[in-house]
């Protein structure tokens, strides 16, 4: 029996649960200790990450520290963002504005083409793409392009009720809760548990939420009565 197992193992036909410790070859820290722990190190490097949300719930804030850590001479490309960008916000992130490209592609085929080109060009580090539909072949192409150009794609998508089975390296669902942002892993390469985490708002928005004040603020009356 053991000899047989040994033989199978030598031919690499056996998958062991212990191999799931490091599902990605390289990780880039998210900058949040709890999230790093949940993801087993951080964002999978040179790959495609899906972030599902209804928008405006700190999804950019989540990746911002990773973006700030990437190469400063390389471009950051925003494809079809939901609204126009605020230059002051981008400068707060220490990113020179002329290294940011915004693309508006009305057709989704154009947007995907642009994303693939940017990813594999080798002159972009991070590509942020807002799009709602994606099929298996398109995802594979994007993943190959990201690996070829050693770049990262963050794919922002509306939260969907029915789940498509796509081989994301990492897919997260973000839902705002009262205390913080609820992060649920929908799909993770090499992982199987459905894990969850609530990241406090104070960690995500340190510039205007102070941890010690947070509790007090919840008790305040709605804005309409403040004036």
């Amino acid at each position, binding site marked *: 029996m053991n000899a047989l197992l040994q033989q199978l193992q030598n031919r690499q036909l056996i998958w062991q649960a212990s191999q799931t410790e490091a599902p990605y070859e390289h990780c880039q820290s998210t900058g949040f200790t709890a999230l790093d722990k949940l993801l087993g190190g951080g964002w999978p490097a040179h790959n495609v990450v899906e972030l599902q949300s*209804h*928008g*405006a*719930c*700190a999804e*950019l*804030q989540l990746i911002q520290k990773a973006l700030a*850590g990437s*190469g*400063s001479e*390389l*471009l950051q490309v925003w494809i079809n*963002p*939901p*609204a*126009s*960008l*605020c*230059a*002051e*916000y*981008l*400068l*707060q992130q220490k990113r*020179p*504005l*002329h*290294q*940011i*490209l*915004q*693309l*508006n*592609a009305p057709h989704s085929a*154009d947007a995907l083409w*642009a994303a693939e*080109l*940017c990813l594999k*060009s*080798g*002159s*972009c*580090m991070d590509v942020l793409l807002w799009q709602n539909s994606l099929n298996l072949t398109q995802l594979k192409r994007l993943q190959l392009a990201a690996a*070829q*150009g*050693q770049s990262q794609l963050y794919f922002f998508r509306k939260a969907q009720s029915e789940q498509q089975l796509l081989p994301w390296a990492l897919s997260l669902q973000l*839902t*705002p*809760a009262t205390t913080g942002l609820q992060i649920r892993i929908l799909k993770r390469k090499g992982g199987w548990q459905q894990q969850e985490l609530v990241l406090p708002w104070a960690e995500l*928005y340190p*510039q*205007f*939420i102070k941890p010690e004040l947070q509790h007090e*603020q*919840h008790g*305040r009356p*709605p*804005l*309409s009565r403040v*004036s």
Partner: protein
Amino acid sequence: MSERMEFWLYLYFPQLQLDKLLVLQNTTTALSGQNKSNNYLNLTAPLAIVGADHQLLQLNSAARQAGLTLGMGLASAASLCHQLQLVPHQAEQEQQQLQQLAQLLYQYCGDIALQTDTALVLKLSPMLALYGGAMQFWQQIQQVLQQAGYQYHFATAQQPLVARLLAQQGWDQFLLQKDKIQQQLKALPLQQAQLPEKLLEQLQRLGLARLDDLLKIPQAELVRRFGVEMLQYLQQLTGAKPALLQFIQPVEQFEQQLELLYEMERSDQLLGPLKHLFGLLQLYLQQRDQLAYQLELSLLQRQDQQQQLQLHSAQGEYQSKDWLKICELQLERLKLKRPVIQLKLILRRCGPRYAQYNPLFAGNLGAGKEQLYSALQLLSLLQARLGKEQVKSPCLHNDLLPEQASSYAAALEPQTAIAGSLAAVRPAFLVEPPLTLDAEQQQQLQLHYGPERLSSGWWQQQSQHRDYYVAQNAQGQWLWLYRDLQQPEQLYLQGYFS
């Protein structure tokens, strides 16, 4: 002494127009991979170029096999070979081709003159010292001619006229020995000596058959009998008077036209001919060590219609393959209104080429990263497919109001820094114009931060006083709101934190 050292090379192209058709077909089919069925010219079947006086001027090999000869009338040609394809002769186009060829040869020879009988005269003597021998020089010239793909005859002589007579006869010898050339010249029949019609008839009546017979007679005698015309001819033949030739100058501007073999209806068919044009551009740019930044491509269509494309490259390119890629992306978006019959490529903006440096050890994270395209190349490709206005970079203006401070500028252009500290709380996305929130929405808001007061424009007429707040709505979205102090009951949504 120097007069005697002069040597000329005469290059005669007997079938320029026909050869061009062959060359074009080769490049087109090589790229599209198949012979198009709507190609109305079949170059493997008998084909002839016909002059204005209905004489056959140029014949392909199939036509020759069918028994046709040059100079034959149309009627007899049609009776010999009924499926003969006819193409009208275009002298202007041939002169253009000749001009192009001369520009190519200009790299190797300084003195080139165009001749009206589809030929080029090259002055050899000053070039021989440079190349260290006649054969090396001739090899260079042959290489260019081979690449161009035209049939040619050639001859060398001390006088342009002699070289011309021998070349048109198809002597095809590159020699610098005077006696051998003279020997060949003397054997030339008088009919082929290009004498004026009247003179030739008179000489033949006298019983002279070859040029040798004419040259034996003392010159003075001939001139006394036949007049000035004979004198001019003899002077040209012996080189007593220098030949009047106008040497070409290199063109200042790149502008090339290309007649298509047949009407092209699909834009992807155009890539074959375009490759040919970009190849010429590459050669032009390489010779001048320049980069092209902007090109204009005109697609000429029937009834004098045309569509124009502007091709841009932010980095500047000279290679044909890079321009072809940019052009391909633009053609994908283009809808042809009519079939295209002619292409025209004009170089609009170019600049000197500098050596480009790539860092050997690029940063900490960029280390080991191979660049397929540089940032500027990427920009050109994106602009070619999406349109120039769809690719932009954000920029910051020196203004307090958020909607005025953030706007867009040309992509990847460095911007002037603005002094002063940045505001701490700004959302990632701005809503333009700001939305008003109704009473119900206002009820559901939960305030988290504020107010932050912005007072702006008080030095002008339109002063604005706003209090900004950060709030969460019922769906848990983070909003950036403001209240205008002039109408305090109304809340506006100006941005989303994300």
